[in-house]
C-alpha cells in the first residue's frame, strides 16, 4: 500500500529495556513479546494496550542477561513504562526488567543504550555462606546455586 504522507504517519518512541534473569533461564523473543502484550492488556486494558503498541523490534538474551527495543506510540510512554514494569515472569521464569532510556529513532536507541552487556559469564565454585558452591559469575553479579535454587549474590559477598 502506498505509504502515508508524513504528517499522518504515527510517531514512535523507542524504549531500550534491560533484562535480567537467573542464568539457567531460556527466554524466547515470542514469549517475551507475549508477556509484554499480556502485561499491557492486563494493566491498561485493550484500548490502552492498543494505544501504547509495545511491539518488540529487537531482542536478545543469554546467560541471564538480555536487552530489547520496544516500539511505543509517542505520548504513551508513561503507560508503556508501567506495562513494561509489570512484566515479572516470562514462561514461568522470573524476569528483572528496567528501562535504560527512550529515543526518537531506532538508530539512536541502539547506539546509546544497546550492546552494553559484555555477557562473559564463567562457571566456578565460590565460597558463599561458609560453603563451596557452584556459581555463575558475570562481572559483579554472581548467581550461586543452592539446594533451593539460585541465590543472587555479588562480588562483595564472595570475597
Amino acid at each position, binding site marked *: 500500500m502506498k505509504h502515508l504522507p508524513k504528517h499522518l504517519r504515527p510517531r514512535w518512541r523507542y524504549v531500550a529495556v534491560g533484562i*535480567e*534473569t*537467573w542464568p539457567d533461564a531460556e527466554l524466547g523473543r515470542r514469549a517475551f513479546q507475549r508477556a509484554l502484550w499480556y502485561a499491557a492488556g*492486563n*494493566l*491498561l486494558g485493550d484500548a490502552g494496550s492498543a494505544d501504547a503498541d509495545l511491539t518488540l523490534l529487537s531482542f536478545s538474551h543469554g546467560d541471564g542477561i538480555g536487552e530489547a527495543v520496544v516500539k511505543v506510540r509517542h505520548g504513551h510512554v*508513561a*503507560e508503556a*513504562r*508501567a*506495562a*513494561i*514494569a*509489570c512484566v*515479572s*515472569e516470562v514462561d514461568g521464569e*522470573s*524476569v*528483572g*526488567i*528496567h*528501562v535504560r532510556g527512550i529515543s526518537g529513532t531506532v538508530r539512536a536507541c541502539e547506539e546509546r543504550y544497546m550492546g552494553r552487556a559484555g555477557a562473559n559469564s564463567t562457571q566456578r565454585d565460590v565460597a558463599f555462606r561458609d560453603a563451596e558452591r557452584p556459581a555463575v559469575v558475570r562481572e*559483579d*553479579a*554472581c548467581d550461586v546455586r543452592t539446594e533451593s*535454587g*539460585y*541465590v*543472587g*549474590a*555479588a*562480588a*562483595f*559477598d564472595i570475597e
Partner: protein
Amino acid sequence: MYEAVHAHPDGDATVARHAATAARCGYDGIVVRTRDALAPAGEAGEPSDEAAGLRDEYGVDVVDAVEVDADDPTSASGAVGNYRSERTVVCLVGGDDGLNRFAVEEPRVDVLARPTEGSGDFNHVLAKAARDNGVHVEFDLGPVLRATGGKRVRALADLRKLREIVTYYDAPHVVSANPRSHLGLRAPRELVAVGEAVGFDAEWVREGLRAWGEIAERNRERRSEGFIEPGVRLGRHEEDG
C-alpha cells in the same frame, strides 16, 4: 529515593546484590527488611561495617531494619520493644485487624507493612491514629507488579480504599514493591509510572519512596550521641577556664 527489600535468607538475593541493582536503578538507598541479612547499626546509630562497605562499593545507603511478623498484638509488642533499640527502622507486618490497630497506636513502630494483606482492613480510626503517632502506612505495589487475575484486582481495590482513607487524614505513607530478589526490583520511575496507571498521584508515590530515607535519617539522628530529645541537641560547649 529508597526501596525496602527482602534479602537472603528471606528472599533470593543478598543485600549486596540488592544494593548493586538498586544503584543501577537510581535509588539512593535500600532498607533491608530481613533481620538475619544485615548486622544491626552500632550504639550511636552509625552503620555497621557491612553497610558501610556496601555504601563505599555501590554508592547506596544500606539501612538495617526488621520486619516484625507476629501472630497477635501481645507478642508483637514484645518484639517491637526488643528490636527498637537495636534496629534503625522497625516495620510491623499487618494483615489482621488487631495487628493493624496495635501498629498504628504504637509510636515505636515506624512502618505498618502490608496492612490490607490477608484479612486485614483499614479505616478512619486507624488512619487518625497513624497520623498522630507518626506510623507510616505502607502501600505495597508488589501484587500490582507480580500478581495476576482476581488476586491483583483485589489488591488494587484494597490499595484504592487505603489511598482514599490515608490521603484524607494526611497520614504518613511509604511506597514499596516488596522485592524478594534483585529481579523483583523496579526503578523509581517505573514504580511512579505503575502508580499513575493505577490511579496514584506521581508526586505522592515519589514522596512514599523518599519517606523510607527520611525515617532512616530521623532514627539515626535520634540514636546519635548528641541527641537529647526532638529539637534539643548536645552542642559544642566552651571549656571553662
